[in-house]
């Protein structure tokens, strides 16, 4: 019996998984492997198909085609077996309006058949970890959106699981709660949990995830570690030049190879290039020969955010 589990390398394996709504293809034949014990970031702009993918993986909706294997279990044949071993925080809010914060945690543990004593301890732990102790007696109906979201995420840790799905869990949280949640999740992964984490915020994925897949328009357009993504797409640097005279700099610089003008306000110019050294030299030469005084100058590595935007933009083209 234990044989299969001991050789399980991937918590999630999907092959050409797709979902159509009528003629519209929301998820278009994606392949993914999520290693056991890792945090996998599923990143994409709004409407990319993240939630739809997650609903399929959590067996909430059936796929239109393809195969999926979750925790070594066939997702089409045995959805209930999968659901018993996973935790899911959906994108949409879910709460028991008439129950207090602590009662809703308690009852959720009961629904998962967690022993009463363990339940009690976990409620106390989670109230502290998620900064809910002050509002433990408040009804969910009376909470702010951020507080409700925290209860919703905390609640999922009432039960044991092998794999946790989080669909944009930090939406609606303030920066400190956001960081608190990400760190809490990191701690759980150390204990062996695998996490599938959906977000449209790149910083979060960069901070948290071991691997990242970028999805756009239902298709996966890149899968890698955050560092490799940066290496692959991120040799580019951004050059920012501030001049004191209004000049048509874009046309002055149009002759330089590998120099993409991102932004030109007349006095502030932003340029991207993967050969920033040479390009910078060229720019300075041209500006000097045209007697344009340079006020300020900076070269910064292109952020993952910009990589993300450009990868998405390219795949839209």
């Amino acid at each position, binding site marked *: 019996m234990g044989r299969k589990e001991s050789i399980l390398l991937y918590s999630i394996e999907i092959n050409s998984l797709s979902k159509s709504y009528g003629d519209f293809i929301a998820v278009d034949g994606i392949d993914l492997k999520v290693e056991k014990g890792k945090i996998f970031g599923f990143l994409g702009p709004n409407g990319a198909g993240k939630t739809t993918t997650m*609903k399929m993986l*959590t*067996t*909430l*909706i059936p796929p239109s085609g393809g195969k999926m294997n979750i925790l070594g279990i066939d997702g089409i044949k045995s959805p*209930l077996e999968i*659901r*018993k071993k*996973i935790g*899911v925080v*959906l994108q*949409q*809010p*879910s*709460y*028991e*309006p*008439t*129950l207090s914060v602590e*009662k809703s945690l308690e*009852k959720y543990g*009961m*629904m*998962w*058949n967690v022993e009463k004593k363990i339940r009690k301890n976990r409620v106390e732990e989670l109230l502290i970890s998620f900064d809910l102790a002050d509002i433990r007696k408040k009804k969910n109906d009376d909470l702010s959106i951020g507080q409700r979201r925290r209860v919703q995420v905390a609640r999922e840790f009432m039960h044991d699981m092998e794999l946790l799905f989080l669909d944009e869990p930090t939406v609606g949280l303030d920066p400190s709660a956001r960081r608190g949640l990400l760190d809490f999740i990191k701690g759980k992964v150390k204990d062996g949990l695998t996490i599938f984490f959906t977000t449209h915020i790149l910083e979060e994925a960069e901070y948290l995830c071991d691997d990242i897949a970028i999805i756009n328009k239902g298709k996966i357009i890149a899968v890698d570690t955050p560092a490799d993504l940066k290496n692959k797409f991120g040799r580019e640097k951004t050059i920012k030049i501030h001049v004191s005279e209004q000049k048509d700099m874009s046309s002055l610089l149009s002759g330089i190879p590998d120099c993409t003008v991102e932004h030109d306000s007349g006095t502030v110019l932003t340029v991207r290039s993967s050969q920033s050294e040479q390009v910078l030299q060229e720019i300075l030469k041209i500006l000097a020969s045209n007697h344009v005084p340079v006020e300020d100058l900076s070269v910064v590595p292109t952020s993952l955010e910009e990589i993300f935007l450009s990868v998405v933009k390219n795949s839209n083209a």
Partner: protein
Amino acid sequence: MHEIIRLVNRNLTISLNMGFVIWQIIFPLIYIFVAGFAYTALIHQVPFGNKTLDYPAFIATGMIGFNIMNSTLISGIIIWNDRRHGMFEQILVGPFTRAQYILSNVYTIGIIGLVSAAMITAVGYPLFFKQVEFNVLTIPLVVFASITGSILFGSIASIISTRLKSSEGFNVVINTVFLFFAFVSTAFYPAQGAPPILSTAFYFNPLTYLVDVVRAGIFGYFNGLVATEMTVLGIGATVLFLVATKLLSKLEL
């Protein structure tokens, strides 16, 4: 603990709050006593089968059926609330099947219906005990009416819950249904003596059947009409339950 028991436990916990208790128990009691005695001046006696009843006895027994309907319409709204508050999806990504969720709602509704009926019976008892005629059919009739009535009204609420999208629409529909069922029925006044159009309309209302069967049990009066009414209740509850289950199992997420 079995999955369904856990879900029923959860359903009862979220349903039994102060508002529910006031609406379900205190309000009907006030109504029985205030209306029962106030209207006695207008309606002295109500013919019922081979006997005549005092109005307070008539209305107290009517309230049993009314309360079953009332509480099960409200608990049938569990599904609506679960959809609105995201708990429907959350439960369905948990260790439960749709069938278990549906059954847990039926059991919850049945339990709430039976308990409501028992409480109103207990409290209303002083009003109608003089005219009660217990016999072998009393308990079976009251229990049959409570269960089929609960399932029937619970299914109606579930069907409405699965069909509608907006809260405003839902409230309008539930309130309209509620008002029609409550007041176009034999719960508060007898069919005999009502204008013919109204007394005919009474029989397009399942609450009338429910109340008639409860009264038949409590006042020991059983005849062919009551048997027909039981059949209608049984068939109605079954059909509506199947429709509700079908709609719920097809509900897109």
